[in-house]
């Protein structure tokens, strides 16, 4: 049997942190670290080397985006499943663009949560209908907004990707989407993952350009 998946829980609420850790341990995960603060979490992660970080979007010290950036620098390839108690639209979108691989509302049922963790660990992208709506909205915004640089066009979704995201936003499960579009479950998953990949790539390009423009390179 392979070694258990190493998970780190970052949440400023102690009760929540303990509850989640207990559930994860019971489900066979190795909870290697917990933290209630963003900066501390990044430091601990450098030593604990988790595979998956369960990250609360609202931490007392730094923003979710900063934590995600720090985690990716310290632990390249780490997967981040974001949790939030409220649907802070723009914050969620920013965190996903920064490199989180999944998002779940805190009120999700236990089974749903564990399923999301196992999918995140396996490298899948976990989308809620709300997140799909946000991502679609973001692509439409980028398509209509005047581009910062004409040589580099705004990222676009293929028709199929748009179709899949719309169905996710309407609350269909990947299985239902696969049935409806006559695709394999894996293909649906890949389409969702691609949309996020395009958004994250675009975000990195934008950040790099900004850095060059500001003379920070």
């Amino acid at each position: 049997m392979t070694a258990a998946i190493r998970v780190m829980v970052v949440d400023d609420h102690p009760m929540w942190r303990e509850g989640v850790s207990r559930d994860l341990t019971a489900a066979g995960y190795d909870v290697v670290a917990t933290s209630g603060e963003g900066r501390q979490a990044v430091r601990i992660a450098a030593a604990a080397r988790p595979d998956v970080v369960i990250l609360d979007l609202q931490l007392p010290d730094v923003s979710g985006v900063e934590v995600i950036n720090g985690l990716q620098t310290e632990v390249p390839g780490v997967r981040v499943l974001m949790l939030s108690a409220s649907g802070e639209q723009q914050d969620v979108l920013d965190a996903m663009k920064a490199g989180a691989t999944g998002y779940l509302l805190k009120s999700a049922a236990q089974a749903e949560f564990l399923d999301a963790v196992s999918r995140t660990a396996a490298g899948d992208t976990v989308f809620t209908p709300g997140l799909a709506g946000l991502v679609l909205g973001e692509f439409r915004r980028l398509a209509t907004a005047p581009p910062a640089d004409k040589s580099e066009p705004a990222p676009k979704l293929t028709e199929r990707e748009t179709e899949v995201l719309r169905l996710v936003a309407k609350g269909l499960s990947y299985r239902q989407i696969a049935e409806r579009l006559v695709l394999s479950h894996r293909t649906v998953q890949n389409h969702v993952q691609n949309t996020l990949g395009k958004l994250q790539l675009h975000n990195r390009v934008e950040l790099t350009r900004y850095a060059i423009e500001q003379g920070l390179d």
Partner: protein
Amino acid sequence: MADARNSGLEAPLWRAIAVYRIAALAYTSGLVIVYVSDYWHPVWAWPVLAVMAGWTVVTTYGYADPARRRTPLLVADQLVTMAVLTSSLYIVGADELALGTPTIAVAWHVAPVLCWAVARGRRAGITAALAMGATDLVVRAHWDQSAWTGTVLMLLAAIAVGYLMRIAQVAQERLERAVELEAATRERERLARDIHDSVLQVLALVKRRGAGLDGEAGELARLAGEQEAALRSLVAGRQTSEPVGDELDLMALLHPYAGPDVTVSGPAGAVRLPAHTARELRAAVGAALDNVTRHCGPGTKVYLFVEDEPDEVVVTVRDDGCGIATDRLAQAEAQGRLGVAQSIRGRVADLGGRVQIVSAPDQGTEVEMTVPRVPIS
């Protein structure tokens, strides 16, 4: 009222009146020196000037203190000034005054009128100006244009200052209301943060821990989840939809529908539509939600999805509960019995849009409303 008047513009106005009084005293002293040889009783001019100087000092300090800035001081001011004015009859002499020699209180006698206008508003200012003007005219006993002009100018000054005070008062009240509102908003935001950091987290935890349990524990978890969702939309929900020009944010209108069984998704930014279109769409969504409640079992999940296209807005209401056989829907619609037909199709058609209803046995019912974006000219 007194409180509102003790702040803002009032203090500088009192200082300005004090400066005016001192300047007028210097001016009238100069006139006395020039004309004193023509006076009937010139000896008395000096003690009266001393009284005027003393009264200038008294009023400068008196009016500077809000506690003493009351009716007794105002009345005393008016009477002392009128007495000084009247003393001109004896000192300057009625014949000299009739010839055009200025009174001993010229210009200085306007100060109490301004005080009334600042302290008690326009009407009191006018009354004081009429009394002082009458005294001036009677004392001088000649009725040419320059005599009238002095009184009319005093009257106009009283009206202008009184009006200014009223505007300052209204502005002050508005400012106070705005400050109160801002404080209330900040308090609400602080409460929202607190609730978010504590109650919301615990409720979500209770719901999660108990979700798999049967019986009463499961029921408690479900209730906790309902409360969590209700609180969440209360706390984190977008601000109420404020009309911008003639437009409303559709997302803000639809967000109140979010709950434990209703997910609302759409772009992060506002989806602006003409106010009428937005309200009608909300009503259509409400009808679609009612329809789900009526026809499907409790606990049916509903997904509201808003798409903001350049030339149209698409709102989808999908439930994962009971798929209605398409022919049954059409049949009921043909008979005009279905709420869906009238409420949704009717409203959306009135907006120049179209409705598509997709229903499959395993995949619930999907009501897709597409409404054209009317270009804002």
